Each structure stands twice: as C-alpha cells, then as structure tokens.
C-alpha cells in the first residue's frame, strides 16, 4: 500500500532524530566511555548500530553494540497460538557497571521493554539502564518511560505504527496505519 499522507517521519527527520538522541546520550552520560548500546531485535538493533556510528563520528569512541531478542522473556508466550521465531541474543561484552542504552523502534505498551529489562538483569548489574526509542506512541500498560524519544506520536489503540528502515525495507520512514481506514 502507499502510506500517502500518514507519513510522520521522513528519512531526513529520522536521521535528525537519531543524531539528536546521540547528542543527548553523550550529554547525559558525560561522554561515551561508560556506554554500551543494546538494540532490541529486529529494528531496534538497526537503530542501535546507527546511533553507535553517530557516536563514533562525534566522539571517536567505538561503543560496544549488542543485540537482544526478548521472545524468551515475554509474558504472553502461551496465550498465543503462534510463537515468535526466537532469534539469537548477542551481548558479547560485560554490562556490569556500564551505562546501558536500550534501543527500540516503538514504545507502545511497555511490555517489550519490561521483558528486555528482566533479561538485562540476568546478564549482570548495569550501573544504569536508559531507554531510547524512535517513536513513543502512547498507551503504556506498565510504568515505563523512555529517556530519549525521537518523536511523540499520539495514536489510537488499534492504529499501527510502521517503522521502515533502509537495511530491511529499502527506505527510512515511519507512518501510521489508521485503524478505521484499514478496516474499510
């Protein structure tokens, strides 16, 4: 389908938002030395790599990037008929006493982040865990908020926020599929 008028973030806006988030992360953590970045699969992992690349440009520091699959920590494993395909978690560095930046594309109910936090605890005791998201769409079901937000987008519960990234989808864009249009 053509997303048409519902595009809320163009490629330029996404790039600016990620650059701003990178700056904010550096400012908040007084540099990049203590940082590790962990992206939640699938799209969070791609954003994580981009933010790490931006930080390298800005500070010249190579921040370790890990990938995390949260399927095994979900709270709805047995309430769905289909299981998500579990992908590999790759965190090949120590997170103990690090400032961990957790990155996801969309913050919605907060349940993914809850699962990621639980998993993180099993990997070690980080000094802090901070959350960065490209889009905060509201409707949280848990007391979780993001520390860095690309864009706040108010949505209806049953709207769908679609994040496309060049690496997987051919181009960068974020659009909303409005529920009642989808059903029409």
């Amino acid at each position, binding site marked *: 389908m053509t997303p048409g008028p519902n595009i809320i973030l163009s490629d330029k806006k996404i790039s600016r938002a990620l650059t701003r988030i990178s700056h904010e992360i550096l400012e908040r953590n007084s540099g990049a030395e203590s940082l590790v970045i962990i992206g939640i699969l699938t799209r969070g992992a791609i954003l994580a790599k981009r933010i790490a690349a931006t930080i390298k440009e800005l500070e010249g520091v190579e921040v370790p990037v890990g990938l995390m699959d949260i399927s095994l920590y979900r709270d709805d494993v047995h309430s769905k008929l289909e299981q*998500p395909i579990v992908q590999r*978690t790759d965190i090949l560095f120590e997170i103990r006493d690090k400032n961990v930046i957790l990155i996801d594309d969309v913050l919605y109910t907060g349940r993914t982040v809850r699962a990621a936090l639980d998993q993180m605890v099993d990997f070690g005791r980080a000094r802090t865990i901070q959350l960065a998201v490209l889009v905060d769409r509201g409707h949280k079901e848990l007391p979780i908020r993001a520390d860095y937000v690309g864009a706040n987008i108010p949505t209806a519960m049953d709207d769908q926020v679609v994040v496309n990234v060049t690496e997987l989808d051919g181009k960068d864009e974020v659009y909303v599929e409005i529920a009642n249009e989808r059903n029409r």
Partner: protein
Amino acid sequence: MSQLSSRHLLGLESTPKSDISLILDTAETFSEVIERKIKKVPTLRGITIVNLFYEPSTRTRISFELAEKRLSADTVNFSTSTSSVKKGESLRDTVQNIEAMKIDMAVVRHSSPGAPYFLTNCMEANIINAGDGSHEHPTQALLDMFTMRKKYGRLKGLRVLLVGDVKHSRVIRSNLWGLQTMGADVALCGPSTLLPREVERFGCDVYTNLDEALEGVDVVNVMRIQLERQQAGLFPSQREYTNLFGLTKDRLKRLNKNFTIMHPGPINRGVEISSEVADSKNSVILEQVTNGQSVRMAVLYLLSGRKEELA
C-alpha cells in the same frame, strides 16, 4: 511467526522438513542461552513437565531435565524402579493419575514401540518421545543433525553413514528418516543378521562391509552395540563384531577430508569404536551432548502450550 505442525514429537518419520528446520534454527538460539552466565530463561514458567522413564537412561534424562529447568519449567521425575509400576499399575492408569495432578507436558521413554503415541490418546499433555523400544528416538537424531549442520553449514548432500544394529537401533531409524527428509545422502552398515527384513525399503545404500561403506563418507555415526538386546545370538561374539565393524584408526583413511565421528553414547570403548578414534579431534561426541541441551530446549519451547494440531 511460526510453529510446528504437530503438538507432539513422536518420531521423525512423518515430521516435515519445515518442522525439522524450525527446531534446528530455534536450537541455534538456545545454544547461546546455555553459554550465558545465568543459563536460565523464564519462558516455561508455570508449565509442569513429567519425565516418564520406563527404561534406564542417564544422558537423555539428565539432558531433558536440565533443558526443562533452564526454561524455568517445574519438573517431576518418574522411574519404574521406585514407582507403583512395581505394584502392577498399567501405563494408562499411571499416566492418567499423573495427569490428574495437572501436568502440561510428558517426556516418555518406554521399551514398547508406540508407547508415546498410545499416550497421546489417553492424556491431554504434549508428548515427547525420548526413545520407544526399537522404533524412534527423535531428539537424539535432531541433536545429531544439529551437530552436523553446525559443522558443515548444511545437511543437504552430506554423505552420512550409520553403523550398528540397524534392526534394533531407534537412533539409526530416527537419523535415517530425519536426514533423508533434509536431503542428506544416508547409508547404513551392519552385520546382515542385524539388518531388518526389507531393508531396501529405507531407500538408501546398505553395506555389510565397513571398509566399503566408509568410502567417501563425511559423517560416521556409530551406534553402541546394545548388549541388552543381544540375547538372541545374532552375531557370534563381541570380538568378531569389533574385528568386522569396530571403527579403528586404520579404517578412517577411506573417509572424506574433514570427516566427523559421532556416537550417541554410552560408548563401549574397544567394541564398536576404539578409544583412539573416540578421543580424536574429528570426534564430536561431547559436542553432541552439549547440543542435546539446545535441541531439547527448542523442542520443549516449540511444543509448550500447544493445545491444538495445526489445521
């Protein structure tokens, strides 16, 4: 999103390629989990699993039990020697009583072929076959395939030789069917008295001479000679078996370069395999045991909570 086509794992004979691939891919993920410092994930919290072992087993039972614990399931163990089976209770009565205690999954080993299938008709739980008589041992074959795939990056086209008691070995049967489904080139080798009737129906090369069989092979999977199943005198002596079918260093030169030696254990050193071969750098016998963990975690995860068959 994806799922297995069945809610039980009874054997590989009729398991489709997509299911085997899904299990092997999922096992890849779990092989990372068991390398973590905390080798435990909360995935099967609240699921209760009973391990019903009507036959002795060390490796398989421990492997299943650890896999269950690493997925945070609650487990109960049952073995015939310490249970009411001694008092004459039937299999059906035993499992129905156990199920009345709200069991979600059952891992079953039994000396009768088809016992796990029988259980699918008398309990609601997801059933996993951990070896039924001389029929199948699907998780062993899955972990063997996982080990091969890890080493060669593929199964298709691999030349795999299964050596041993073809007639009685459930590991051979499960390996054969699973590997054929995945497109491997499978061959069998064993004494003619230990080949089943109509062995040609397996649709693979069959040898009674080990040296001929080893020509051009990538993987040799050697089975234990099951002395407990050898009361019928199907070969003259253990020594003769070793001379004709024992895997020794001298025999290895016929294999392809980068060959692999496998054995499901427990090994009888100096009988079906020499110590030198079992401990050589081409042997992956202990990796098989490690991989058994990941594969069993994958099977438990994929079957857990499945109430219906896929339509």
